């Protein structure tokens, strides 16, 4: 049994089902990436795992505990942290305040975690008193990652963390994500940059029209001729 998994998830936004019997799971210390063409239900699957979608069928578990009926906020308390694709920082607040807000649910002293995150993202320490809205795209993504990590999550979910950043910044962000994996967090991400995402991922899922089409290790998918042809451009 995987640490965090959604099994046979079926549901949509009230209308027709967007995802159909879709299964996604991730273990601690693992990066799992969800790929697929536009409209395949990648983000919807992510929202289902977060509890922002009412599922008709399926079961979501974390550490063998059924959380299918918990609200998104209660899932945060179970250790599931999410970084949205857009609007993922508090633009009018300083970097440090952004991180403090990430630790809002923690009553104990979180200075250690703060230092850990500054260790992980040195640039944030340098700019800790600057408004997050004044940072560059790559730095903002680091603030967003840092905020999500402040709760000390066991599962980190990222929605297109490299959307709209330059290739150099993208590599840097992927390196940061690998560093986060080393701390033993389970990472689940939706990515557009399929090739790079697969190259750092331990496993991947390819969704098509809301169903699991392929799954396997990052290497397997990268070498699968059909996956290459349809999603990686040959």
């Amino acid at each position, binding site marked *: 049994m995987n640490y965090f998994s959604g099994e046979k998830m079926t549901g949509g936004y009230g209308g027709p089902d967007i995802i159909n019997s879709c299964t996604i799971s991730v273990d601690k210390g693992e990066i799992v990436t969800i790929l697929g063409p536009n409209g395949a239900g990648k983000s919807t699957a992510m929202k289902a795992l977060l509890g922002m979608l009412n599922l008709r069928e399926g079961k979501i578990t974390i550490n063998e505990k059924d959380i299918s009926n918990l609200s998104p906020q209660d899932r945060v308390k179970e250790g599931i942290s999410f970084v949205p694709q857009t*609007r993922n920082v508090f633009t009018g607040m300083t970097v440090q305040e952004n991180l403090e*807000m990430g630790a809002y649910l923690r009553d104990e002293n979180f200075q250690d975690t703060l230092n850990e995150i500054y260790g992980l993202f040195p640039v944030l320490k340098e700019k800790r008193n600057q408004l997050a809205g004044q940072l560059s795209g790559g730095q903002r993504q680091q603030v967003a990652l840092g*905020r999500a990590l402040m709760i000390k999550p066991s599962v980190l979910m990222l929605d297109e963390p490299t959307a709209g950043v330059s290739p150099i910044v993208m590599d840097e962000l992927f390196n940061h994500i690998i560093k986060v994996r080393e701390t033993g967090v389970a990472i689940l991400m939706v990515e557009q940059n399929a090739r790079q995402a697969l190259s750092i991922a331990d496993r991947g899922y390819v969704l098509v029209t809301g169903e699991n089409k392929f799954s396997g290790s990052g290497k397997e998918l990268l070498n699968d001729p059909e996956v290459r042809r349809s999603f990686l451009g040959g």
Partner: protein
Amino acid sequence: MDFVNAIVLLSNFVIVPALSYGSQLALGAIGVTLIYGILRFANFAYGDLMAFGTMFAILFTWFFQSIGISLGVLPTALLAIPFAIIIAILFSLLIDKFVFSYYRIKKSPPVTLAMVSIGVMFVINSIIRIIIGPFDRRFFDGERFIIRANEFKEMTGLNEGLAIKSTQVLTLFVTIVVASILFWFLNKTRTGKSMRAYSDNEDLALLSGISPERVVMITWIIAAILATIAGTLYGLDKSFKPFTYFNNLLPIFAAAIVGGIGNPLGAFLGGYVIAFSEIFITYAYKKFFAYLLPESLEPNSLIQLLSTDYKFAVSFSILVIVLLFRPSGIFKGRVL
């Protein structure tokens, strides 16, 4: 000497009154801007919430006077404010529970909530008229002046007197204290930061585990505190008449928008911008120029840009100009 006289004249009729009027607007505008930032609608009932809080300050003042409690030189109303605040807070939370929360849970658009607040405004307005009536009430007691105009003249030997009312100094003092505590709260405490976070990005605040109910409740509490304090200070300085509080809604909204709606510091400064503009533009400068200019150039007319009856036109013009040319406000807030 003429120059000093001119300055004293201006201080007496423009600067001192504008400072105290500006403070009253500033506190009100912070309340409006906080509600806009957190609850995301323009609360038209705010002027009447101010009147409601003030009414209870008056009722408690009368009660204290009747049992013989007073603060000596200071107005008894100061003692009444905390009690009035408690009632205003309970009242705000009650309205939120029975009216606004319904539309919030339904996720109604801001315009609907603004219209609902107009309904609430009429209801509060009527409650006030039923309880205390529509008439002018003066509830000031204690020492009226810190410096009287003729005392000042005797002291300095100038032609012009500078009168400073105790309520003006009190207003300024209370405003500085309240605003300092508020900004400390918003910038330094965990709850205050969570309010700013919620106002900044609601979805992300929810993802961080910030409880919306708690943030909304604290916003109403702060709004009721500010409304009662601002309203009572205004009533002490001038007089309490329910209708003037409704009228003050316009300059208060203008202040909040000039300061960039959703930005409390902007609203605070916006209050002074509006007050100074209103009073500067409606003041008759004839005597002022008479001191400064040689006799041959002495003005015949009043040199008044607008009659004081039109002072609301000033806030309204500022409101329109800001919305047209800089909708995010001078101090950068949300775009309406």
